[in-house]
């Protein structure tokens, strides 16, 4: 049932400022000059595509929207060609607005604290090394498809207590939801249904035999009144953890390796000073932020002086905010020891990514283990680098050759 087809094409863009399209090939390939053009035009731009959609282009405008839950709802969080009906408990808490958001979020926070992530770290190192063992002798690899992709999916499978060997199944669902689903509702619904059926079976198993994993954790959770969560809430949160946990970090690890393959000076510095890796990870997160969330305008308001009308979606581009030269000097340069870096790669406000501590740990471990085993690598000129489309940005094909360039 593997489906790796690409979504249908949209008409080409001729005017980025008034007709932008974040699924256009030029944007997918290299969005940075486009964001600069949009930012120069206005702090908030609009397109008629996607049934009407705004995009804040500055850090300040992104911050204003992220902190304004009165005018901007999270009931829809992906900009698509269609607006499927809103379902309750779609993926709490990311799809929740106040006041139901807070208890749903607090439920998920304790398993993802930095201390909890430290306990997971040895498992992550083992996974990274197992993956490297699988291809190092070949002298080359698609680092997106055979390394970056499997690190987060195996981490979240491990935490959820579902087989890591089902990874390809999960990856296919995510592709259908986050990429094909932008333009094809049937793909989206099919993946959501299959995923729900999968988790229902695991819940069923745990009713008689509870485990110590996240599925049992959610099944055992109680609200303020001491009541268990509705089944739809448990399923929604499980879907969220799987969806949010995979291609986000896959993309961040892939982009980081892509940068290091093309920038030997940064690579050599990180090998010489491994203590710098956590700081470099922050800069790589800033420069190549993978995730663009969305909001729906539910009440007319203004953002950075620009009027926005209800019924439109908002492409809440944390990646574009992180390239705003007003906030980050030399915003277009990767400065791997950048000291001041209040980047928004994990969002701002109440929807800050629950898995940010997990993602950071995975990125650090993935880079540390890779650089230890494969200190020299470069892009393979024989193969193309391709990038994902839409909600999450990262390399999907990343062909490398190992060893020093001749």
């Amino acid at each position: 049932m593997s489906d790796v087809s690409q979504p249908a094409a949209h008409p080409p863009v001729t005017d980025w400022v008034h007709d932008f399209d974040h699924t256009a090939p030029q944007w997918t390939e290299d969005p940075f000059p486009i964001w600069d053009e949009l930012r120069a035009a206005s702090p908030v731009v609009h397109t008629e595509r996607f049934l009407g959609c705004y995009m804040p282009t500055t850090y300040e405008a992104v911050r204003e929207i992220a902190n304004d839950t009165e005018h901007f709802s999270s009931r829809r969080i992906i900009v698509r060609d269609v607006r499927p009906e809103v379902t309750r408990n779609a993926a709490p808490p990311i799809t929740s607005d106040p006041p139901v958001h807070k208890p749903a979020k607090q439920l998920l926070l304790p398993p993802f604290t930095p201390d909890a992530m430290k306990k997971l770290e040895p498992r992550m190192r083992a996974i990274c090394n197992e993956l490297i063992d699988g291809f190092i002798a070949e002298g080359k690899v698609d680092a997106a498809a055979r390394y970056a992709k499997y690190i987060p999916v195996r981490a979240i499978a491990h935490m959820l207590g579902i087989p890591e060997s089902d990874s390809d199944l999960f990856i296919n669902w995510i592709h259908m939801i986050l990429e094909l689903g932008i333009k094809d509702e049937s793909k989206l619904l099919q993946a959501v249904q299959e995923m729900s059926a999968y988790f229902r079976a695991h819940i069923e198993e745990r009713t008689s035999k509870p485990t110590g994993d996240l599925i049992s954790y959610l099944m055992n959770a109680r609200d303020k009144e001491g009541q268990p969560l509705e089944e739809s809430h448990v399923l929604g949160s499980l879907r969220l953890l799987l969806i949010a946990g995979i291609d986000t970090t896959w993309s961040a690890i892939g982009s980081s390796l892509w940068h290091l393959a093309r920038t030997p000076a940064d690579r050599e510095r990180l090998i010489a000073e491994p203590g710098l890796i956590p700081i470099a990870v922050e800069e790589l997160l800033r420069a190549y932020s993978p995730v663009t969330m969305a909001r729906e305008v539910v009440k007319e308001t203004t953002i950075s002086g620009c009027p926005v009308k209800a019924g439109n979606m908002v492409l809440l581009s944390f990646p574009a905010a992180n390239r705003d030269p007003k906030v980050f000097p030399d915003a277009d340069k990767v400065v791997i020891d950048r000291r001041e870096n209040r980047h928004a790669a994990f969002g701002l406000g109440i929807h800050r990514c629950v898995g940010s501590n997990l993602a950071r740990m995975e990125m650090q471990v993935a880079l540390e283990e890779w650089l230890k085993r494969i200190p020299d690598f470069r892009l393979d000129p024989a193969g193309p680098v391709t990038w994902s489309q839409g909600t999450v940005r990262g390399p999907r094909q990343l062909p490398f050759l190992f060893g020093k360039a001749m």
Partner: protein
Amino acid sequence: MTERLRVHVDPDKCQGHARCKALAPELFELDEYGNAHEAGDGIVPPGLEDKAWLAKSNCPEIAIEVIEE
């Protein structure tokens, strides 16, 4: 007379990015949800001033105050 620094996390602004704890583990603590608060009374021991400013300038929510006393 040397100035003394004190850090304070605004609990209404903190969203648990945990950057302060990573950059200045001596000055901040996290609760069970991963949200930050200043360690003890927030007084910055001599030698850690730089870390206090670093934590402030890396908080995405601008939730950290460094007070010069």
